[in-house]
């Protein structure tokens, strides 16, 4: 049993490998984090524009469905029949007036309420359910929903704070910036990584690795640690925004800085410069914004590629990254084309993202045999967890672990928050 004694340091600058590999911890995460007082990103309102439209999603490993009812309201429920525990809605998306489990045809409405049961009174007066069986007590478990500019979040906890409080001011500003007008879904991509899901949650908060692991960023001048940028968190430090501004350094400054890193810094040029061209969407200079929302959502702008990633745990040793690529509904055709071309940058085959799959798998593989050893998180210094206006930092990882420890009930006395 893992306790608050597991942490070697009260500032979360050491993370024992056990936390990535212990099946018991994984089970506790499902209960206390995903089914706990957090808000989980589920999908976009734009994916279910019409009454009856539905989409499957997940809260941790729990299958859920969100859909739009006749009145136009978004509803969601756990996708598991009250009768025998089977998936009710098997398709990933579609349009339907009701949701019927194929096993025994139990029928549910948009809100998950149980509306009909076959042979409820039996056949020829024999069999069926007792007269006292209440349909109203056997619906699908409903989710509380919150929506920010069309991004649908759900929670299974009745005591979760309101979504806007949970996200906090800086995160809300970024989500409203990214989703400041109606979006169009350009497509999805999926990646299966053989590692613990938290390694990915850390990766998206790790500003330090970006231009070292993803050499394309530096080699082709897309993003460098010498640019103006930093990290910004919510008050509880559970979420993080990694940001950078375009054209805020010079090639010479970058060349000198990267001379000590073993990163190719002679700035090759691309035959198709549009691959990295940036046309501001929001009237600001931000060309890289990675907004990580605890526990498992990431809203990403890299140049003009826009995406939302959902981390879907699949056991202690595997997770899926489910990524929704978006543009804006009012994008002219040439902008849509530009975004499609820049999908080359991101996703499982992304020129500036593919390395994460490998880095995370080798971290998971090599750390497994030595559960009591710990990783080191000290870029930007130890101690207090706070925003930084520079990029060579991994402080937000300590924020993640601080809130994680609180939810799991393993926060040691005197720990930083």
């Amino acid at each position, binding site marked *: 049993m893992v306790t608050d004694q597991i942490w070697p340091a009260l500032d979360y600058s050491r993370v024992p490998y056990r936390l990535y590999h212990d099946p018991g911890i994984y089970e506790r995460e499902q209960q206390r984090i995903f089914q706990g007082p957090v808000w989980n990103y589920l999908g976009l309102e734009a994916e279910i524009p019409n009454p009856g439209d539905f989409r499957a999603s997940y809260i941790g490993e729990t299958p859920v469905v969100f859909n739009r009812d006749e009145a136009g309201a978004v509803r969601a429920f756990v996708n598991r029949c009250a009768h025998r525990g089977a998936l009710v809605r098997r398709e990933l*998306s579609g349009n339907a007036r009701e949701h019927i489990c194929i096993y025994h045809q139990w029928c549910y409405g948009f809100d998950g309420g149980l509306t009909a049961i076959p042979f409820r009174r039996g056949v020829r007066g024999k069999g069926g359910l007792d007269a006292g069986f209440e349909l109203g007590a056997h619906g699908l478990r409903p989710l509380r929903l919150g929506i920010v500019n069309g991004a649908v979040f759900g929670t299974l906890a009745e005591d979760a704070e309101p979504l806007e409080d949970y996200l906090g001011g800086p995160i809300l500003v970024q989500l409203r910036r990214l989703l400041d007008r109606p979006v169009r*879904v*350009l*497509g*999805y*991509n*999926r*990646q*299966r*990584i*053989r590692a613990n899901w938290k390694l990915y949650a850390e990766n998206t908060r790790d500003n330090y690795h970006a231009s070292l*692991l993803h*050499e*394309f960023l530096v*080699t*082709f001048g897309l993003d460098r640690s010498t640019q103006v940028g930093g990290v910004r968190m919510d008050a509880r430090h559970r979420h993080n925004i990694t940001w950078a501004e375009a054209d805020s350094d010079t090639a010479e400054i970058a060349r000198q800085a990267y001379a000590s890193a073993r990163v*190719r810094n002679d700035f*090759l040029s*691309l*035959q*198709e410069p549009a*691959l990295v061209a940036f046309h501001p969407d929001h009237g600001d200079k931000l060309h890289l914004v990675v907004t990580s929302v605890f526990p498992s959502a990431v809203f990403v702008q890299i140049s003009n590629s826009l995406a939302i990633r959902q981390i879907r745990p699949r056991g202690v040793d595997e997770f*899926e990254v489910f990524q929704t*690529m978006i543009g804006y509904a009012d994008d002219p055709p040439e902008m*849509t*084309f530009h975004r*499609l*071309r820049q*999908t*080359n940058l991101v*996703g*499982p*085959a992304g*020129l500036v993202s*593919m*390395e*994460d*799959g*490998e880095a995370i*798998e080798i971290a998971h593989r090599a750390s497994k045999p030595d559960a009591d050893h710990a990783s080191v998180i000290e870029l930007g210094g130890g101690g207090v967890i706070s925003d930084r206006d520079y990029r060579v930092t991994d402080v937000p990882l300590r924020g993640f672990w601080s809130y994680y420890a609180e939810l799991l009930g393993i926060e040691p006395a005197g720990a930083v928050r």
Partner: protein
Amino acid sequence: MTLDRGAVGDLLAAYGGLLDDAKYEEWLGLFAEECRYNVVSRENHDRGLPAALIFCDSRAVLEDRIMALREANKYNIHTDRHLIGLPRLLRPEADGPVVEAPFAVFQTDQEGSTRLFATGLYRDRLETAREGLKIRDKLVLLDTFAVPTLLATPL
């Protein structure tokens, strides 16, 4: 114009063989001067969604991707093995003959462990050049769209 089945088979065999030997620059030579190469998940394709995993709308982008693979990208150390099935020669369209072939790609790591990495369908629009058949527009329709680990070396 009727396609020669033997020539199509030679082209597909060279395609898989050059990729498995990591001769990516020679592999580029199988494409026409004006060409496209897209890897699209079946999930997006079936829903009519335009996003691709790899989107090379021109030879320039395709060559940039190979240069990035050589100069910048890091990926799981492995070898590929393409198994390409019998091609179907579809009825020629106005802008050239079209060929479909099923494929599977197995990846083997440094310790000799092999996994099925991807399976799907090639849909190639070809053109006849003086030096033989060239690929003008290749769609890699990816059945295995839950990409294992990452996708670096071309399918």
